[in-house]
């Protein structure tokens, strides 16, 4: 089938998947026993009639499946509801924060992918060498390190003790003379959180690149290439790498899940006002419409990212379309 057919097919599959996700989100939120409204009211004592009135108005007295359908129809119209606590539309609150998370993830992705591929290829080509052993061990250590612990340690060392980087926040609280200075300051704040976010993924991706490359270098077609008289460097970077990177493309699709998960706690530690930080905030206050709205948006982001990864894979691997 052509690429176009493949893309269309995948887009169509997106729809039932989205419905499935919406059910899962709804179920998870309503898993907890008790009244979702209690968060809204807090410790204040509310007379029962008022409570009943509000419950009816919000449609919370209807059976759950009905509530789900009501919510679903709202979502499909683009209405994500209003936050309990701030009374602002959820969409607005999310939109404001998306760029911050996006820039964090983008920087982390670029750093992680470049480092992992470069080191992975070197480690595979020089298998069993000191470089390989060092990188592999480093990757294992990186993989085992809890990200928030690393974040705190880095802040301790680089912000508190050495003072090289700011500890928290997205920018310093002062007025800058030029936009250039403001940008630089912002980037200065971006370094530590992006580093922590990238670290875990680099470790994970490195192992994949290395093992994929090793697998490919064992293949017959690599011997054929050498038997043709191809230069070893070309064998590695053209013949081998092209094949070794195929699984990497798929994994990059999963990276968004990893990154978003990491962003939650990293944004919290660095007080980086993005989606992750937002999620923690609304989860703490049990702002349940906001929680449902944010989950939906995040799920959508993941779905789209996975779709892009699938399409990218179909482009680079000629075998996959012919199913």
């Amino acid at each position, binding site marked *: 089938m052509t690429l176009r057919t493949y893309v269309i097919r995948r887009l169509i599959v997106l729809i039932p*998947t989205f419905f499935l996700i919406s059910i899962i989100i709804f179920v*998870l939120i309503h898993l907890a026993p008790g009244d979702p409204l209690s968060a809204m009211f807090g410790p204040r004592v509310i007379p029962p009639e008022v409570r009943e009135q509000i419950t009816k108005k919000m449609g919370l007295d209807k059976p759950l499946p009905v509530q789900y359908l009501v919510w679903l129809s709202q979502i499909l119209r683009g209405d994500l509801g209003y936050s309990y606590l701030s009374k602002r539309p959820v969409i607005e609150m999310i939109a404001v924060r998306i760029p911050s998370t996006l820039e964090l993830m983008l920087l982390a992705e670029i750093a992680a992918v470049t480092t992992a591929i470069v080191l992975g290829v070197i480690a595979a080509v020089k298998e069993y060498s000191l470089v390989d052993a060092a990188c592999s061990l480093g990757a294992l250590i990186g*993989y085992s*390190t*809890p990200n928030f612990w690393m974040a705190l*340690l880095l802040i301790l060392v680089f912000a508190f003790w050495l003072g090289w980087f700011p500890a928290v926040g997205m920018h310093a609280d002062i007025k800058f003379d030029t936009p250039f200075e403001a940008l630089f300051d912002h980037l200065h704040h971006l370094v530590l959180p992006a580093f922590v976010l990238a670290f875990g993924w680099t470790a994970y991706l490195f192992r994949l690149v290395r093992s994929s490359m090793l697998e490919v270098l064992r293949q017959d077609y690599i011997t054929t290439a050498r038997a043709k008289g191809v230069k070893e460097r070309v064998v590695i970077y053209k013949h081998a790498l092209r094949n070794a990177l195929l699984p990497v493309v798929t994994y990059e699709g999963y990276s968004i899940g990893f990154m978003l*998960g990491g962003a*939650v706690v990293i944004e919290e530690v660095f007080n980086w006002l993005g989606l992750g930080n937002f999620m923690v905030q609304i989860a703490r206050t049990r702002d349940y419409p906001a*929680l449902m709205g944010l989950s939906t948006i*995040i799920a959508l982001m993941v779905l789209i990212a996975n779709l892009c990864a699938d399409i990218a894979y179909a482009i680079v691997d000629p075998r996959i379309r012919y199913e």
Partner: protein
Amino acid sequence: MGGRLEGKSGKKSENVYKPSKASQFFIVWRKLRRSKLAVFGTGIVLFMSLVALLAPIIIPFSPEFGGTPLLPPSTAHIFGTDALGRDMFSLVIYGARISLYVGVGAVSIELLIGITVGMIAGYSGGKIDELLMRIADVIFSLPTLMLLIVAVSMFAVRGIQTIMLIMGILGWPWIARMVRSEFLSLRETTFVEAARSIGASKWRIILRHILPNALSTIIVLVTVEIPWYIFYEATLSFLGFGDPSSPSWGILMQRGYLHFSSQGWWMITFPGLAIFFTSLGFNLFGDGLRDALDVTTRGR
């Protein structure tokens, strides 16, 4: 010229070499011993398990001990004391018990659900398989931490058991996928066909042939999942979604975070170190185990 192949009619068939369970274990053990890192990892795992089990006996101070608050590490208090004067070292040791309990517990639940679902999917095939795998994919691709936060946060009161349960419930896709693919690949092998041809029933085939082969994959998976669950519980606790009455390492870090400055670094460093150390151990052990269980390499 050359030999003639004697007919087998009169002769007894040669002794089929069937490695006993004990000798299989030894081959794996020997291969595991080869890698120094794997041995190191195994050591850590055993050490941590021991610490967790013996916690109440080995702690130097009771976790309730109220001493001088906010003391940096010293000879009396190796890890310092926390805001309420409790000895950090004891707290970290006691935390091992809770963190490991959660890790192992969550993995057990995950295993139970995952293996069942995986087997159903693998054996039924068709629409059921597709549906289950679709659900698995969805859960799998969504950020686990977010799903956990969403699920756990809505509980007004959280017990450590609830957290464990939710983690296990959200974790089945991983295992289910593995089990299912093992199932599918083994289902079509000749030895299963042979078993079927002599009339073995469905369940017998599953239990005696397929599951033991899938076992090695599952074991490795479990080893690597435990540190992930310890990590997730720690993160949840750190963010405030944990169970404060069960002082896991994550809870300790949350408490420490409240005093996070250069004046209190030991309160977050040591619990975090414990998590790191345990994860490293399990990962090394898991890697080594995976290589050792690989039947394509001979042990020496």
